[in-house]
């Protein structure tokens, strides 16, 4: 044992000193082979020492490369994406007259996260956009006018324990809640306020999470009542086995909107009393996602992942037109990482007019209104590393009152690039 340890130390030191030159890996193999030939090491010991040493050198080089960078670079992560979109909207209005609108749009997002110390991080993101909370798109045109950049998010995050975090500012949606679809919250929204997050592994198969957050929602701060929302979301991840898993959560959200001036971003479907909201929105929202890994393996079909998901929402403050739900499935590759990876997702959604506050739902589903039904199909195809093509089609229509359905079909073809 002493003999092997001595060899490990000698080879290890040699490799670490010379590790920057790959040719030495071959020399280490020759040295180990000589030690095997002389009976100092067994072939198994030589294999173990040789492989572990090469791996150690890789690890040390990675650590060295990292530590040689300036401190601010070590502590900063930069990320972003760019999207080029072709969009066609076909609308039929109440008089059954058709209208086609075709536009080109771009979206750029650039974010950085800086580690202040081991427990605190600051995240800042800028993006294209006009300030709409649900969109960072900019429409091309306007005589080549320069486009505006807005502050997308800015937050501070304190992680006192590996499973506990406190976040405050204009936050990322993922730090505030989990949702299987964008029925209630458009994924571009960056909520404002504070959030406490817990994510705890209870067993190899089970982890639980909890978020509690007071949020500033309505942009009218001139009144002392309202303008705030409170959210709590307990949830669970459960791996039934290596191939089946469940994720579920029940969210309770309370929006103090009654008698508050309606947001300028309101889509006008919620019940109003003059220019103010008639109701508070007190949403109970259970949600579930069921994932199956390699579901058709027995049939010889190479589908990596299949998911079924759904969520329901009920506004407890209102007795009529107060429900909504979405349900759907997704199959294909779990992630789009390279050429040929693909994914298809389908969602059916229904939102009654006072189910949720109408400044929140997906802005592309009937322009983000409530009082709608909608089908959505999305096909994503990998074009290479960090780039993909997305084709997203919505077929949506109005369900408010006795007025016509006024259906619309929205086609979006996206070229996405991430960095």
């Amino acid at each position: 044992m002493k003999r092997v340890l001595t060899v490990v130390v000698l080879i290890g030191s040699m490799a670490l000193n010379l590790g920057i030159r790959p040719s030495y890996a071959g020399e280490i193999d020759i040295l180990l082979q000589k030690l095997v030939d002389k009976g100092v090491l067994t072939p198994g010991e030589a294999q173990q020492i040789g492989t572990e040493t090469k791996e150690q050198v890789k690890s040390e080089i990675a650590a060295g490369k990292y530590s040689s960078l300036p401190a601010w670079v070590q502590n900063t992560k930069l990320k972003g994406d760019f999207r080029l979109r072709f969009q066609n909207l076909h609308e039929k209005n109440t008089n059954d007259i058709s209208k086609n609108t075709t536009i080109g749009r771009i979206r750029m997002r650039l974010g950085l996260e800086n580690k202040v110390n081991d427990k605190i991080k600051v995240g800042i993101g800028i993006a294209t956009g006009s300030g709409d909370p649900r969109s960072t798109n900019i429409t091309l045109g306007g005589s080549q006018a320069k486009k505006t950049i807005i502050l997308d998010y800015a937050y501070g995050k304190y992680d006192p324990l590996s499973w506990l975090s406190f976040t405050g500012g204009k936050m990322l949606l993922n730090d505030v809640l989990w949702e299987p679809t964008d029925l209630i919250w458009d994924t571009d929204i960056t909520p404002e306020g504070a959030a406490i997050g817990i994510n705890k592994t209870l067993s190899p198969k089970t982890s639980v999470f909890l978020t509690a957050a007071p949020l500033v929602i309505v942009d009218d701060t001139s009144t002392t009542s309202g303008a705030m929302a409170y959210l709590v979301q307990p949830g669970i991840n459960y791996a039934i086995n290596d191939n089946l898993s469940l994720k579920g959560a029940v969210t309770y959200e309370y929006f103090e909107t009654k008698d508050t001036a309606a947001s300028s971003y309101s889509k006008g479907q919620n019940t109003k009393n003059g220019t103010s909201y008639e109701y508070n929105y007190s949403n109970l929202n259970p949600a579930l996602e069921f994932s199956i890994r390699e579901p058709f393996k027995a049939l010889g079909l190479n589908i990596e992942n299949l998911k079924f998901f759904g969520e329901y929402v009920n506004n407890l403050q209102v007795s009529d037109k107060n429900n909504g739900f979405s349900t759907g499935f997704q199959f294909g590759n779990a992630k789009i990482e390279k050429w040929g990876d693909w994914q298809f997702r389908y969602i059916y959604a229904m939102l009654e007019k006072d189910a949720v506050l109408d400044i929140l739902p997906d802005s592309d589903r009937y322009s983000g209104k409530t009082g709608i039904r909608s089908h959505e199909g999305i096909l994503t195809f990998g074009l290479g590393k960090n780039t993909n093509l997305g084709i997203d089609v919505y077929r949506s229509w109005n369900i408010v009152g006795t007025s016509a359905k006024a259906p619309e079909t929205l086609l979006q073809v996206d070229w996405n690039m991430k960095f």
Partner: protein
Amino acid sequence: MKVFSKLWVFGLLILGLAVPCYAEKIVVEGSTTVLPIAQKAAEVFMNSNPGADISVRGGGSGVGIASLIDGTCNIADSSRPIKDTELDKAVTNGRSPKANVVAMDGICVIVHPLNTVEALTGKQVKGIYTGKISNWKDVGGSDEKIVVISRDSSSGTFEAFGELALKGEKVRPDALLQASNQAVASTVSRTPGAIGYVGLGYLTSSVKAVDVDGVKASKETVLTGKYSIGRPLFMYTNGAPKGLVKQFIDYILSPEGQKLVEEEGFVGLK
């Protein structure tokens, strides 16, 4: 405001429930190839160490390494070395993955004992399994159709053979799939034109192992890396193993642990 107060009380209650206390235990996650070694070793180790709590699960090498980087497992099983991108991510997350080689995976190419072919090149093995070669006469044998036997796609041996011998190409669709190493050996021993592959530990006198690229499959040629259809199997830890993690890895590397490794059809290091 009453609703608000109730909500926070509710939230705090859940917070309290979500923070139970735990006894020390370790989580082993990753490669499905290494999974049988980890499962068997954990079972025997826990029998002789009743205080130890070792949870073992698969998911694949990438999943295991990602969990090690995220700190949700103590040991990442892997049938491949860690990638540079994974190392960079580990370093930025303050982790230092340490490779622990626990066994070698060596796969023998076998034929019927009466087959006159004694050796194949790696290219010929790939050609036979991907459908480019279908008659033994094309590789120096008699004029006889090659019956290709493979493991089913859920096996770690299938995965390893696909990576090491077929370089990621798919097995021909007419290959007969078998559920175990023993079933492959048994089918090959009964079928004169058959070719199959089994873990080195499953080689018996009822079949003939052919040399690949001029190298005979043996424990020594796999351990020295001379035999091309072989690879090290890893258990990655965050830094040098300590405590229960060290005890468990030391057990796998002990003569008793290495015996379990060979019983599972892999090549032991001792």
